[in-house]
């Protein structure tokens, strides 16, 4: 029974077979949303539902970060009154949600993606343009390059 490897082992020892990039979905404007279309390269590695669930949760988290509501307006008005110096002192709502997103991605990687030889990269490291999924070589099934 092969042991599933931790994320650390994955990064250090595996060879990369391919990278898949999930692009942004602009149908609702410039809000940060990613396409939920299942890429064909992942068909052999992961369940379509699982993947869509991950992307949908990410989209919901980003929507929460950019939500226009009472809290963001309050933050904005307070910032305006203090000549925006408040941004130097407190952590904005957006930054708090980004931390939540980073934790969620870490968790998904540990539980679901790393055991399948995949690695999700936090979109913030790619300028919120793409969700990069690294597909590692899988010796056991003989797939890969």
């Amino acid at each position, binding site marked *: 029974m092969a042991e599933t490897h931790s994320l650390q082992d994955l990064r250090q020892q595996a060879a990369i077979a391919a*990278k898949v990039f999930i692009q942004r979905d602009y149908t609702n404007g410039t809000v940060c949303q990613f396409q939920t279309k299942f890429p064909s390269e992942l068909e052999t590695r992961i369940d379509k539902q699982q993947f869509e669930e991950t992307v949908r949760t990410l989209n919901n988290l980003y929507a929460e970060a950019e939500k226009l509501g009472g809290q963001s*307006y309050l933050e904005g008005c307070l910032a305006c009154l203090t000549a925006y110096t408040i941004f130097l002192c407190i952590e904005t709502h957006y930054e708090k949600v980004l931390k939540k997103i980073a934790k969620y991605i870490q968790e998904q990687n540990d539980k679901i993606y790393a055991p399948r030889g995949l690695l999700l990269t936090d979109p913030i490291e790619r300028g*919120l343009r793409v969700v990069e999924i690294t597909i590692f070589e899988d010796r056991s099934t003989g797939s890969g390059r």
Partner: protein
Amino acid sequence: MKNCEYHQIDPQTLSTPNPTPPPPPCAERTITRAKRKWEAFPGRNRFCCDGRIIFARQSGVLPLTLGLILVTSTLFFIFDCPFLVEHLTSCIPVIGGVLFVFVVISLLQTSFTDPGILPRAGLDEAADIERQIDNSGSSSYRPPPRTKEILIRQQVVKLKYCFTCKMFRPPRTSHCSLCDNCVERFDHHCPWVGNCVGKRNYRFFYSFIVSLSFLTAFIFGCVTTHLVMRSQGGNGVIFALQESPARYPFSHCQLELVVCFFSVWSILGLSGFHTYLVASNLTTNEDIKGSWSGKSGSEGSGNPYSYNNIFTNCCVVLCGPMPPSLIDRRGFLPPDDAVPAPPLAEIEQPPLEAKSDINMGPGHLSPAPL
């Protein structure tokens, strides 16, 4: 759901496609300190305080802007305030002080904040996009299309490919040739402020021009009041204007009046223009190009980003959530043997090309069976 069995791969037995250089000896690694990402930034920007402060390479006339504001305000506080405090009210320097502080802080924040720069695409991402473009091109005689049409709220918007940043520009993003960066929600590059005005610093820019209009109007009003009151005291306006300490060639009043007179009209006009832009959720770039209005032949081309409500538009643009900086200036560049390559480092540092993932290239990305 097939559970893939994952085996540990021994690096010694792996046949790499090209020889990777041996990892540098430990002694060498401890000598070279870890570099921060701002040191490898590909755009034309300058950084201060170890990456905390960013501004454009050409600071434009920012020193002039700061100088004019400082000089005029200082003259106001030194010469006009004492007189007006004595004859009118002591609120005058307080109001002037608050406005002055607001103006300077907004100006510095506009100049030194990342306007919404998009980091350039990494090699893998760029290769993936190129592959998609090539796949969509029909014949080999025409160059592949470098625009992508998408639907935003039922309206067709064309996304252009940026050759410098190697990606399709998101909507409302434009490439600034002065800073050599793609900036999100690009408004314009302001030489007075010495930086681009984009998504992240538009609210600072707006509060700068609005508070500056108030300040210049206030100083103009106070100086005029001062002159009028002095002239009533005795010998007329001309004498009051000419009155100056012996060592200065120009009267402080003359200088303040001239600066404020010209500033008031231009700054007020600019504030009015930007208030209109904010209320209709437009950028200067879109307004100048006429992207959403009066395009011949296009039907229903309203602004797809507007909420069709002035109040909502204002709230969204000025009080919306503050997006984070995407360029992570103070993050560390990963060492050579790390696996996922950061987008910025690859462009500047040749040794990273030895990494196996980059050399995989598009040729090695075999299409998965459909």
